[in-house]
């Protein structure tokens, strides 16, 4: 199936990716080819198959105690942030 220019723009918007105009036809072509390729999965009869939920049979995600185990190191973590003030992450104004 071939994806349209509008579909690529919509997917990019959902994924919060700005594409340059010349990138759009490239992704139109390659994503269409990938979807056709993964369409091979339709060959498999999966009518009575439960989807895999964990790669190890019988295991599921472990839960931990709801206890404090980490100390407050926000200054260290915020050292990697593009813009910080007074311990807060700064972004463009959201509410006028």
């Amino acid at each position, binding site marked *: 199936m071939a994806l349209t220019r509008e579909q690529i723009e919509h997917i990019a918007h959902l994924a919060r*990716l700005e594409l340059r105009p010349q990138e759009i036809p490239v992704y139109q072509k390659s994503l269409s080819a990938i979807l056709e390729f993964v369409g091979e999965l339709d060959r498999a009869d*999966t009518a009575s198959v439960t989807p895999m939920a964990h790669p190890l049979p019988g295991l599921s995600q472990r839960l931990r105690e709801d206890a404090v185990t980490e100390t407050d190191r926000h200054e260290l973590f915020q050292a990697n942030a593009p813009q910080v003030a007074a311990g807060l992450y700064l972004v463009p104004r959201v509410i006028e």
Partner: protein
Amino acid sequence: MSHSTQTLMQLANGLRAREFSSVELTRDALRRIDASQPVLNAFITVMHEQALAAAAQADRALAAGSAGPLSGLPIVHKDLFCTQGVRTTCGSRMLEDFVSPYDATVVAKLKSAGAITLGKSNMDEFAMGSSNENSFYGPVRNPWNTALVPGGSSGGSAALVAARLAPAATGTDTGGSIRQPAALCGVTGIKPTYGRVSRYGMVAFASSLDQAGVIATSVEDAALILREMAGFDPKDSTSVDRPVPDYCATLDAPLAGLTIGLLQEFFDKGLERENEARIREALAVYEGLGARLQEVSLPNLPLSVPAYYVVAPAECSSNLARFDGVRYGHRCREPRDLLDLYKRSRGEGFGAEVKRRIMTGTYVLSAGYYDAYYLKAQKVRQLIAADFKRAFGSVDVLMGPTTPTPAFAIGAKTADPITMYLNDIYTIGANLAGLPAVSIPCGFVGALPVGLQIVGPHFSEARLLNVAHAFQRETAWHTRTPEGFR
């Protein structure tokens, strides 16, 4: 004096006998790494000062008799493992300036065992690629022929071990990213069972597939490192609480009575004739060791690549949503508003293949398509896992090629993503089923190495390493070193 062709075992003995110091070893490795960089580009960051300081500390520990099992031995981490106080880029512009505030569990464990980190190896951006051409920091070159790719995504780790710049390096394997580059570079690589090694501090790509492992020049060395890396970690919710066997202790167990399953689906039309010949020769070596060969068929295995290219992009689109230009990572200049900040920071920070996978994943998870793609793929994945389980009912291990061809030219497969994706046709099955798998060098096609893949049941690492080591006792392919890097 260069220690480049010595194994970890030999180096460990030399250090303990005080034949040389860790500082000497480290200085020698750093010198060779610096000289190799313009040729191979296997490193994103070389940690000169930190490595020498750690080596001096290891020498004191060795002198004081308080050394750990890996004290003073130099290793390299794929630049996907967080290293405290050291830049961790994951091969991306997005993390060009990211200095990790903490160590990944793998990094912390190897550090506490005494290993010296020489630096961070180059890789495909966010581990998405099979050629290392997707790195923001430039491609890595194959030491056997620098016009060729080393494979990927752990291409830097495989190339640097092949070039004997370090005796071992960590890697990660989501669809073949340890085994495929190990095969193309003529080195040994192991991807353990899903959950065997902690993923804490690994930059996440596809969380139900990602697993850390090791690349080394021999199975013996890989076992030595894996023994220290593996184990339960409460910080990783998918880590399995199960004791770690002493992988080194069982390496020499006899193979008599071993049943090897030949994966029929791996000997397909895509497998080049000369590659197949090397694999058949390796199988004959195993027969000589008393193993029995039995053909097995996994009928759903040919669907592993399509299943992977739904599941992995879906998980990637979700995992990489964290890169928002707010808390860490690249931020665009002068954003107009919050949406513009997100879109341009991500559009600029991610490379072409990463964007392709994020969009593929976003599409297959989007409203109306989830059942047709994602759910269908997870069902097919279940069928593939069941095929493996059935096979392990009658054989101990499965064998086949790691890759269909030897290393290919830089630029040869970049035009068509699907051609590139098919490089992992023989490796992806083990990831989908969470199984451990090894690739070992088993000969050459022309001047290029070929890898034999061995897959085992869940948590059979000790047996896999034993089986792989038996081959390396009989053959010398793994001791071959590329010209110019001896």
